[in-house]
């Protein structure tokens, strides 16, 4: 009986979005009279940072500071349609819709500015600080505040735009069954080191080293936050958590936090995160969906590390001490 050490590696591909009856998201953008921009969405911020990212995307497209953009995700009854915040699709689908809407709004904004400055709209550019200026002659400029006032009270224009991003439904080919169930794959690779006590079956994760390829990181600190949390969650899925409450019988399943266990602050493995940025062709500014992907590779990596440590293949999650001991017993018997 001994503590045995093992190392496991796993790599995954993870899709963005899904394929049911098509995968649409809409966005509407309009300016207030003082030149702030409202983005109306039915996509919801669950804490993953949707509002911040959509504000960045809208601001970058229109050419204003991020704090001039307000994201309204208030009401799925009245907002423009979105399939929802799931399948790691929020940044990709809603982001593309926001870009389209913001481009249209920007065009109207430039047209109003052109009338005020008595120039052609195609000769105008934004300075990113809240002003519009003539290309090559920045002294000829007007603030977006004044452009919005002019649009509202003088020109009778609505500085607004509509955005629609749709991944059409993919039907399987009759002969092969091949289809395109999703788009824009993110990738990850994890190496996990574990110690397995072959007397008690307990697994301790020592280190987790993750590399994530997530397209463009639109907000690097928030991406890091998601990946660190996701890596922890992956270990939790591997060793502690279970879908048992849902099927097939929940008679002996955990019903509260006393029984449904998750690793706490005292159970953390030494975690390393490396981000690879390979911008996607169809993502907003190259972004993919790193949301759920980041919690997956740790699971097979831990399972492989357990195999490396004690020579048993556990193919049912979570990898509990009981399952390891049963497998060791079966191995000894055979």
């Amino acid at each position: 009986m001994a503590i045995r050490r093992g190392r496991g590696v796993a790599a995954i591909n993870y899709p963005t979005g899904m394929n049911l009856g098509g995968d649409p998201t809409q966005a509407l953008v309009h300016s207030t009279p003082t030149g702030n921009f409202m983005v109306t969405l039915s996509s919801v911020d669950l804490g993953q940072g949707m509002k911040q990212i959509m504000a960045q995307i809208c601001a970058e497209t229109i050419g204003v500071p991020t704090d001039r953009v307000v994201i309204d995700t208030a009401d799925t009854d009245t907002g423009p349609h979105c399939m929802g915040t799931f399948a790691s699709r929020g940044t990709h689908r809603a982001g593309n819709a926001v870009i389209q809407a913001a481009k249209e709004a920007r065009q109207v904004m430039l047209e109003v500015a052109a009338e005020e400055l008595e120039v052609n709209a195609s000769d105008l550019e934004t300075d990113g600080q809240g002003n519009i200026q003539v290309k090559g002659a920045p002294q000829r400029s007007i603030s977006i505040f004044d452009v919005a006032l002019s649009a509202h009270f003088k020109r009778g224009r609505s500085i607004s735009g509509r955005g629609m991003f749709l991944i059409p439904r993919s039907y399987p080919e009759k002969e092969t069954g091949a289809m395109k169930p999703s788009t824009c794959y993110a990738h990850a690779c994890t190496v996990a080191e574990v110690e397995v006590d072959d007397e008690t079956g307990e697994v301790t994760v020592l280190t987790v080293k993750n590399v994530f390829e997530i397209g463009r990181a639109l907000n690097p600190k928030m991406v890091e936050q998601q990946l660190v949390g996701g890596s922890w969650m992956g270990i939790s899925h591997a060793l502690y958590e279970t879908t048992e409450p849902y099927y097939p019988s929940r008679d002996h399943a955990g019903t509260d936090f006393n029984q449904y266990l998750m690793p706490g602050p005292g159970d953390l493995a030494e975690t390393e995160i490396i981000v690879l940025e390979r911008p996607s062709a169809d993502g907003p500014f190259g972004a993919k969906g790193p949301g759920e992907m980041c919690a997956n590779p740790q699971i097979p990596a831990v399972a492989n590390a357990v195999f490396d440590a004690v020579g048993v293949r556990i193919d049912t999650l979570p990898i509990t001490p009981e399952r390891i001991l049963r497998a060791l017993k079966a191995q000894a018997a055979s």
Partner: protein
Amino acid sequence: MAKVPVQFTLNGSEKAEFVESGTTLLHALRDKIGDTSPKGGCHQGTCGACSVIIDGELRLSCLTLAETCGGADIRTTAGLAEGGVLHPLQRAFLDGFATQCGFCTPGMIMAAKVLLDHTPNPSREDVVEALSGSICRCTGYEPIIQAVLAAARANSQNAA
């Protein structure tokens, strides 16, 4: 059933309420007084989201009866900022990206405040121990641990 009068101090302000006997402090704070900073997660004392400070000690407001709090000095996350300036713990959580969905954050900050009040220069182990009664789904805890350590460093620099 007759309601019970209860008076206590919440974040420095006198509060007086009539509560039904058996009302939890969490319910009284959120639904009667309107301080929604303590969160109702599990309502059975296992998640820590409802943590508040009563007379200097960390308490689970979901397991504390309001009528037992007469005369108590109760502190919640809503009372930490002074004149619009965030408490060093709030600042450290913000700067360190130690909050994601935010539901556990008030309980984490209350637990950390009690720790720093008693142990201004905690070790990592002290922080882990102090946070161990609070569950977080999003962050993987490490950013929270780092934020508490950063707040302790900021406090000691200000004191020096």
